[in-house]
């Protein structure tokens, strides 16, 4: 048996890739090239040998800074391009990579040019906008002034008429009037300007307060949005004219204008002067416009030429920065002529890494080649699975729980099939399955297009899981055929029903039931069960027992995987004192239950399995009576019970005691601790010098073992019960779809009215799509996830490893997008 197992060919994906800790010694002159070749290869994970140094104490900090500066410039270009409304070209020109220094100069040049252009056009634009505002103010404020003057004139005339009508009043009032007129001419002034619409109200209030109401405020909204000369944003503005009197008020008002950011423009009172100024402004505006346009064209041209290279430059800078970041993780050796790096590399990739290093040496004309050798590792290597499009999503499902310990059995292998299957047990409906299948097929068919696009988080999740979705839908079609459910409608696909009515009228079908008149329905549930009185009891019993069978099978698989783990890591202790008692315990209780279920199904016995199981514990020696399924059941039960009882101390006690014994044997006579030399020993590799010091704490080990055993014993019961969720969710799904079908679609179809039928159809479609296809899928997915994470994986999976993160340009590009 053991030989057979050893001779099995290794399964792909079952064990993570073998890794080795390698050391690279690269001459300084070829280091940059070597690292960038390794980045293209993407199969080496560097270890940070300078972790204690802060980022700016490292060797290549200046280069990193320069890259940071350059990427800032590139971001600036990108902003400018977006601001100018140009699209960066979709098909960037691919040019041979330029040298970093050259690129740096180019970028600086471009930036300088752009900034200069911006400042030039900025000045022009500011004058332009100011003129535009002035024009607006002239137009609006001019009209205020005119109407005001008219009013004033009218009033004056009225007054004078009054005055002249009564001669008696003339003498008394003429002086006063004269005074008033002079005041009117010299004292009544106005300030006109333009202000943000949002601030206008507060501005007016402030003016009112400051002048104690001695002012007249006129305002009119500007017709169009104006670009503010200072902030260069399009805003709504309001033109205002304030009339006031007195010098003090003037300074106050000007200050307030300043505080509110209102731009004041002088408007002459004289109408002809106004016109003249307006004309002047208009001519200057048109001049400026042509200059501005020319400037913008020039700028756009410069930006487009930058835009051609932008993507290439960006990716180049990103790679350069990554290379220098990696170089910063390397150490200088004693002579300062070589860089020493350590890293993890999959065994299969060693040759490729070596080849890349050689290529780098050759390409950089270095005199000395790089040295590449394998070192001993104390810490556990990273976990690396070579997945493809299909397996990746399943590996992600497992990784979401925890990354596998190095080389431990990978549950993803089984998850590929068991996950979609358990999902389908809960989601068994071949109508819904076909809907899901269509979705999955669409995603897969457009795979190449969608993978280049940037998707929303929800779509991205769906797209990532497209192959999971595919298998889930296929399995749910399969399970749907077994359950004979199609939107809860039974179909006679595999021939006719095995049941028929007792007589032609079928009157007693619901009281006395049907009779079986031929062989059972060949595949799945007989369509005649649908709608019958015994439908639920029958399906419940079927699904419940099936769930237990599936659960016990999967948990056994988990325990068997723990055996393979123990074999792989050569831990006979785990095999003998963990795997064997666990297997015995689970199978003597729930394996026996599964056996009973199968026998009951095969023989059609009427035995009560609850009763058998419960009294197996309460009174094992009692006679089983009518519940006896096979000969010798009672002695078997007693044996199984005893086995289960023995298995508990078996898995609890021996392992910690044996560990203690082993430990004391190994360290016998070594009562004194090792002397740790404080000096650095040059002969010894830095890594092997680190002593692996392990302490044995018996009570800790024992408590750990106790927790583990108790967890398993209790878990055996609760996990089996947990698998009943398969039944529950499946029941809920079929009941829900029945409700939607019968209570909505059939009810609406009962009316002979097109509108009601259409409404019923719409509601049915909506409920099916959102509740059954989305919510139910999600819930079944989550329950399947839980069954895998908790019930299956806790039997063998440690999940305390860490992922292999190679230094790779491809991964960096992905991260940035």
């Amino acid at each position, binding site marked *: 048996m053991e030989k057979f197992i050893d001779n099995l060919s290794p399964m792909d994906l079952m064990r993570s890739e073998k890794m080795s800790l390698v050391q690279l010694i690269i001459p300084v002159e070829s280091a940059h090239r070597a690292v960038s070749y390794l980045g293209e290869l993407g199969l080496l994970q560097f270890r940070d040998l300078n972790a204690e140094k*802060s*980022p*700016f*104490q490292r060797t290549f*900090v200046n280069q*990193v*800074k320069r890259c*940071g*500066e350059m990427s*800032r410039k590139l*971001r*600036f270009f990108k902003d400018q391009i977006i601001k100018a409304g140009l699209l960066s070209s979709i098909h960037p020109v691919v040019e041979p990579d330029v040298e970093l220094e050259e690129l740096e100069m180019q970028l600086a040049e471009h930036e300088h040019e752009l900034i200069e252009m911006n400042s030039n056009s900025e000045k022009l634009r500011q004058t332009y906008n100011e003129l535009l505002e002035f024009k607006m103010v002239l137009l609006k404020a001019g009209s205020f002034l005119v109407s005001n003057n008219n009013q004033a004139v009218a009033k004056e005339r009225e007054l004078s008429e009054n005055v002249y009508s009564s001669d008696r009043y003339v003498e008394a009032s003429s002086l006063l009037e004269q005074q008033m007129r002079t005041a009117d001419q010299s004292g009544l002034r106005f300030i006109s300007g333009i202000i943000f619409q949002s601030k206008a109200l*507060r501005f007016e209030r*402030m003016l009112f*307060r*400051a002048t104690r109401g001695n002012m007249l405020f006129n305002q009119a909204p500007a017709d169009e949005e104006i670009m503010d000369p200072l902030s260069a944003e399009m805003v709504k503005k309001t033109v205002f004219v304030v009339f006031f009197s007195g010098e003090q008020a003037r300074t*106050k008002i000007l*200050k*307030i204008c*300043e*505080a*509110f950011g209102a731009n004041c423009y002088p408007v002459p009172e004289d109408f002809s002067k106004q016109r003249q100024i307006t004309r002047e402004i208009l001519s200057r505006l048109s001049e400026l416009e042509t200059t501005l346009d020319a400037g913008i064209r020039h700028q756009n041209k410069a930006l487009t030429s930058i835009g051609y290279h932008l993507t290439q430059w960006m990716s180049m800078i990103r790679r350069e920065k990554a290379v220098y970041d990696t170089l910063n993780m390397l150490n200088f050796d004693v002579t300062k002529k070589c860089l020493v790096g350590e890293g993890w590399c999959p065994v299969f990739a060693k040759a490729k890494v070596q080849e890349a290093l050689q290529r780098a040496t050759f390409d950089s004309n270095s005199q000395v080649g790089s040295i590449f050798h394998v070192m001993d590792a104390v810490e556990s290597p990273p976990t690396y699975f070579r997945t493809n499009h299909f397996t990746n999503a399943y590996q992600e499902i497992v990784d979401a729980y925890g990354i596998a310990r190095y080389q431990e059995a990978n549950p993803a292998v089984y998850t590929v099939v068991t996950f979609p299957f358990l999902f389908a047990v809960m989601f068994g409906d071949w109508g819904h399955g076909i809907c899901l299948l269509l979705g999955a097929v669409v995603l897969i068919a457009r795979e190449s297009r969608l993978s280049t696009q940037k998707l929303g988080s929800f779509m991205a999740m769906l797209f990532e899981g497209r192959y999971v979705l595919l298998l889930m839908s296929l399995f749910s079609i399969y399970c749907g055929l077994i359950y004979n459910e199609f939107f809860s409608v039974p179909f006679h696909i595999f021939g006719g029903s095995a049941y028929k009515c007792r007589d032609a009228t079928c009157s007693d079908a619901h009281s006395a039931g049907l009779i079986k008149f031929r062989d059972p329905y060949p595949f799945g549930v007989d369509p005649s069960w649908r709608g019958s009185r015994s439908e639920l009891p029958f399906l419940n019993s079927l699904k419940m027992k099936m769930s237990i069978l599936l659960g016990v099978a999967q948990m056994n698989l988990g325990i068997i995987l723990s055996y393979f783990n123990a074999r792989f890591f050569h831990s006979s202790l785990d095999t003998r004192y963990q795997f064997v008692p666990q297997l015995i315990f689970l199978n003597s209780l729930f394996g026996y239950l599964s056996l009973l279920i199968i026998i009951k199904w095969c023989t059609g016995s009427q035995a009560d399995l609850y009763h058998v199981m419960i009294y197996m514990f309460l009174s094992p020696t009692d006679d089983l009576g009518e519940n006896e399924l096979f000969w010798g059941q009672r002695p078997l039960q007693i044996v199984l019970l005893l086995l289960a009882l023995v298995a508990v101390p078996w898995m609890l006690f021996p392992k910690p005691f044996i560990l203690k014994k082993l430990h004391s044997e190994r360290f016998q006579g070594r009562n004194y601790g090792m002397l740790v030399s404080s000096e650095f020993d040059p002969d010894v590799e830095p890594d092997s010098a680190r002593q692996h010091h392990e302490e044995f704490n018996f009570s800790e080990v024992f408590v750990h073992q106790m927790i583990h055993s108790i967890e398993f014993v209790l878990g055996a019961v609760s996990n089996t019960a947990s698998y009943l969720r398969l039944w529950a969710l499946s029941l809920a799904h079929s009941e829900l779809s029945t409700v939607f079908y019968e209570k909505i679609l059939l009810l609406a179809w009962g009316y002979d009215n097109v509108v009601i039928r259409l409404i019923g159809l719409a509601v049915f479609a909506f409920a099916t799509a959102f509740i059954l296809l989305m919510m139910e899928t999600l819930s079944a997915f989550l329950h399947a996830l839980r069954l895998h994470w908790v019930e299956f994986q806790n039997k063998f999976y440690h999940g305390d490893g860490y992922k292999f993160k190679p230094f790779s340009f491809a991964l960096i590009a992905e991260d940035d997008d």
Partner: protein
Amino acid sequence: MYGFEAMTFNIHGGYLEAIVRGHRAGLLTATDYNNLCQCETLDDIKMHLSATEYGPYLQNEPSPLHTTTIVEKCTLKLVDEYKHMLCQATEPLSTFLEYITYGHMIDNVVLIVTGTLHERDVQELLEKCHPLGMFDSIATLAVAQNMRELYRLVLVDTPLAPYFSECITSEDLDDMNIEIMRNTLYKAYLEDFYKFCQKLGGATAEIMSDLLAFEADRRAVNITINSIGTELTRDDRRKLYSNFGLLYPYGHEELAVCEDIDQVRGAMEKYPPYQSIFSKLSYGESQMLDKAFYEEEVKRLCLAFEQQIKGAGDKEPDVDL
């Protein structure tokens, strides 16, 4: 009330609590500060900060950096986060958060008024103002000639209006009057904030009354020391002390009659919490007092922050250069 406030806490403050905890995770750690101490140029600092939460705020600054830019950007982060929280907050937390900004508002008002008095440019002054204490018509402060105008023109619209009602005099604005105005405003503000916190009750009252009492006492000591040798009468001085805190009322009586720094020390050493602060100082020294008080304040704020309750821990340490 005290026992049950946690029951509905998440309904009102759960989201903000989560945000505050998130911000807390983004604070610079002791190792960060150690590394910052080792920086030799401002570029080093930028580089180090780019790995922290402050990174996005600094990354687009062109290379010759100035200290002011760094501080400005880091403050901007604080302000952005604070404003976000303020927007998300519901009553009474939003009022609480607003109360915290009033202090900055008073400082800004005083800054602008003093600046205008010395004929500085308003724009320049505005840049120096703390962004948390900005209000709409702050620039108009420059228009006002005396206290009454100040109130009538500008402050009547701001939340500071009720505090101001106490110090409206038609006196002209000069340095002395402005200083008195600042202290009167602070007195009214602290008392109001204290009352508000007491009204809220629970852990807020407990923590905040401690912090506010400390603040009130600190101001009382500062007023005393600064007014020694000026023409401020004892009664006027007495009026500027806030009516709560550890020193109230007997400590205030003693402080009001102090004539030199050693008398202040004598008065303060009767209070155990302040004994430790004064014990660090040698006799006759008042320069270090500010620093000692500041350290004590930061310590108390940290303690409050560690308790992680409501907005009490909303102050983030800025980057010190």
